[in-house]
């Protein structure tokens, strides 16, 4: 049986995708980067992962400990970058496991040897920004914020686009007409003005940004899904299903939808990269995430303000280019894999 195993169209598309080396490796690389960034706390943190101090084990990653715990003078949270604390933690039988990059995204290194912004040194591998925060840590956390935001925005936009497109395309007629006019009106609203107005009125937050961008992000996809539904609903297999007595819902779910997802899947990587770019540019303009959130756009704007600190703009630029390139390669491969005109050879 193994030799003649039947492949569903989706499986065949996946195999075609895998044959595109560039796209496949881009997918693997991107997935690895995302997983690593999800583990950012372990990779880049100003707290040690585990501390053994005077026979006791501490988990600073999940618990806050006052400095007095480790022989300090203050009741405040321990600053593990303090040379005194470091010394305490390495004395005698004490030890501590630090993250490879011992800075968090907001950590200000009060003990840095060079002025801010500092060029790459042994302490700060990619240097610091103009407030003394470690650049590598900011890039890792900023990448994570961007990707998670893009995933959420893509997911919401895709679901909204499919639902609205499906309703328009499947029912057609007046429903379609009304929805189309609504989209035309809605689409002509000035998105950027709304963002500026809302960010002035309401407190900026990622959630608000997600809602505002989602409000306008579904329309492009909705048109594609609508067109696919219009085409598929008059195929003979849909007519046969009607003649069989299936309900509208069953026909949509089992027959039309699975055959209408090609543009949706094809556009996923491109939508992701568009979302990352949107967040970055809004942050750059200062309309995006609240201050203090690690963000690639905010780093770019720092790079612009500190032209001589080349390491800021160069490394941020590199992260953005690599991310967007990987997504584009994936998108290209996916588009080829889903192309119905391409035959298996």
């Amino acid at each position, binding site marked *: *049986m193994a030799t*003649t*195993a*039947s*492949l*569903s*169209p*989706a499986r065949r598309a996946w195999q075609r995708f895998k044959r595109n080396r560039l796209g496949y490796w881009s997918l693997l690389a991107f997935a690895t980067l995302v997983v690593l960034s999800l583990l950012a706390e372990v990779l880049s943190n100003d707290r040690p992962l585990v501390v053994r101090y005077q026979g006791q084990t501490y988990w600073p990653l999940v618990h806050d400990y006052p400095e007095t715990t480790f022989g300090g003078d203050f009741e405040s949270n321990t600053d593990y970058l303090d040379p005194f604390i470091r010394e305490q933690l390495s004395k005698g039988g004490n030890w501590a496991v630090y993250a490879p990059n011992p800075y968090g995204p907001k950590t200000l290194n009060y003990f840095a040897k060079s002025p801010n912004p500092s060029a790459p040194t042994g302490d700060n591998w990619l240097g610091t920004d103009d407030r003394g925060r470690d650049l590598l840590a900011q890039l890792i956390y900023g990448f994570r914020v961007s990707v998670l935001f893009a995933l959420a925005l893509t997911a919401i936009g895709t679901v909204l686009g499919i639902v609205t497109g499906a309703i328009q395309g499947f029912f057609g007629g007046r429903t379609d007409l009304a929805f189309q006019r609504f989209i035309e009106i809605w689409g002509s609203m000035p998105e950027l003005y709304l963002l500026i107005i809302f960010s002035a009125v309401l407190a900026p937050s990622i959630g608000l940004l997600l809602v505002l961008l989602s409000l306008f992000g579904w329309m492009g996809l909705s048109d594609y899904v609508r067109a696919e539904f219009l085409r598929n609903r008059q*195929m*003979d*297999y849909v*007519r*046969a*299903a*009607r*003649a*069989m*007595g*299936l309900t509208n819902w*069953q026909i949509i779910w*089992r*027959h039309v939808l*699975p*055959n209408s997802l090609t543009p949706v899947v094809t556009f996923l990587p491109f939508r992701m990269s568009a979302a990352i770019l949107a967040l970055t540019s809004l942050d750059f303009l200062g309309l995006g995430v609240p201050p203090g959130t690690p963000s690639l756009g905010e780093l770019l704007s720092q790079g612009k303000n500190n032209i001589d600190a080349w390491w800021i703009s160069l490394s941020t630029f590199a992260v953005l280019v690599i991310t967007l390139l990987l997504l584009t390669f994936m998108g290209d491969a996916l588009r080829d894999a889903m192309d119905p005109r391409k035959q298996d*050879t």
Partner: protein
Amino acid sequence: MTPLLDVRDLRVGFNGVDVVHRIGFTIQAGEKLALVGESGSGKTVSALSLLRLVQNAQVQGSALLEGRDLLQLSERELRAVRGDEVAVIFQEPMTALNPLYTVGEQIAEVLQLKRGMTAAQARQEVVALLASTGIPEPERRAGAYPHQLSGGQRQRAMIAMALASRPKLLIADEPTTALDVSLRGQILDLLSDLQREHGMAVLLITHDLNLVRRFADRVAVMERGHLVEQGAVAHVFAAPQHPYTRRLLASRPRRDVVEPTVAADQPPALQARQLCVTYPVPLPGVRGWFRKGVFEAVQQVDFDLAAGRTLGVVGESGSGKSTLALAALGLLPHSGELRVGQSDWASAAAAGQTRALRQRVQVVFQDPFSSLSPRMTVEQIVGEGLQVHQPGLPRPQRRERVIDALEAVGLLSPEDTPDAWLQRYPHECSGGQRQRLAIARALIVDPQVLVLDEPTSALDVTVQQQVLGLLQGLQRERGLGYLLITHDVDVIRAMAHEVLVMKEGRVVERGPVLQVLDDPQHPYTRQLVQAAT
């Protein structure tokens, strides 16, 4: 006498796999050669690769056109041959003509390019050419865009364009397949006349043996890339040598139907009285903003279909026969009465109880490629009806029923292991297998009436014969009533008990099938029957 075209050892391959194996044929000047074969036999590829019109094909061998080997010519030299010495007309004139230019402009382009005419000369010649192809009002038609012409007129315009350069050889690739039956004869006669007038040779590529018999001097039969037989048409048709040619010639649908014994008081399985179906159409001008016009696709049709019998509905495109099929399935709003057994579609719909009726009327569509959802397995496709009509049936029993249905349509024999078939997807099946799947999907809910909408017209002739045989057998065993919609008089003759002839939404003639076909009363029926022989 040296032949006009002498093809020797022609091999055509794609990606190293040969699809045409060392074939050879000759065409004398002024001769009509037909290249026949079923889909996938390589007949189109063979002919078009002579002009290198097939992409990504590796062509070997030789093709001497008046002593010059076409296959050795440079792309530049070949361009001078194409359209000049050898012209091509394609199957689908709508896609072969550029929709952005008028027909006259496209023909004039050929004249100016190939015959060096001035614009004014070309304009006159265009009208003369169009007139010679029998298009009415050629001056006006020259200014028409392709979409403004009917299918037959478009094909005539294509022919005029092909003739514009006065070719020595015309390659006609299925020139009448996209046309209605009654037009096919006319186009073929036109080609014959023009061929005689210009003394050009014609290479006709077709799957239709009727056309060959009517048109060609000689015939070459292709099967899976091999040329299995060639000779004079009369000779080959009278005494075919190769088994494949014999099979092809014997593939005319055979009549094998019985008169069912039905109790007299049993109501018809499907009955229509004064059935009308209308579509809204946009009205021109400002009026169309406020209300829609009405197009009557089916007008006042009556019929009775008894169990175990076949009612054939024959007509050309636009006759309303497919609309009638959809109405019979309860998929279109209609006026008049349409009863399935004792109950009526309209009142069932009003009461929200159409599901029980749907189980009794099922359908098989024409196109086996669009009638099966490409993302479902055979088991899901065939089993879907059971999920709807017997939702309580446990999975193993449903699978059992699916296997039974597949056996009934001859896709499985009892000793086969069914798993491989059940997990298959439609793209892994041939056209004939797909059509059998569509029949199995309809049969599994145990219907009383099957609406067959051109069930075999997308299939090759030998496969068509098998599918029709299957349908006849199923009718005998299960007493199914068939509403058979087709444009093919041969299929009607083989399958039907009674026949309705439809034209422009109306029934123009009706009666027992042999009586209507052998002694047609209405001129339209006569035209249809004549075109089919």
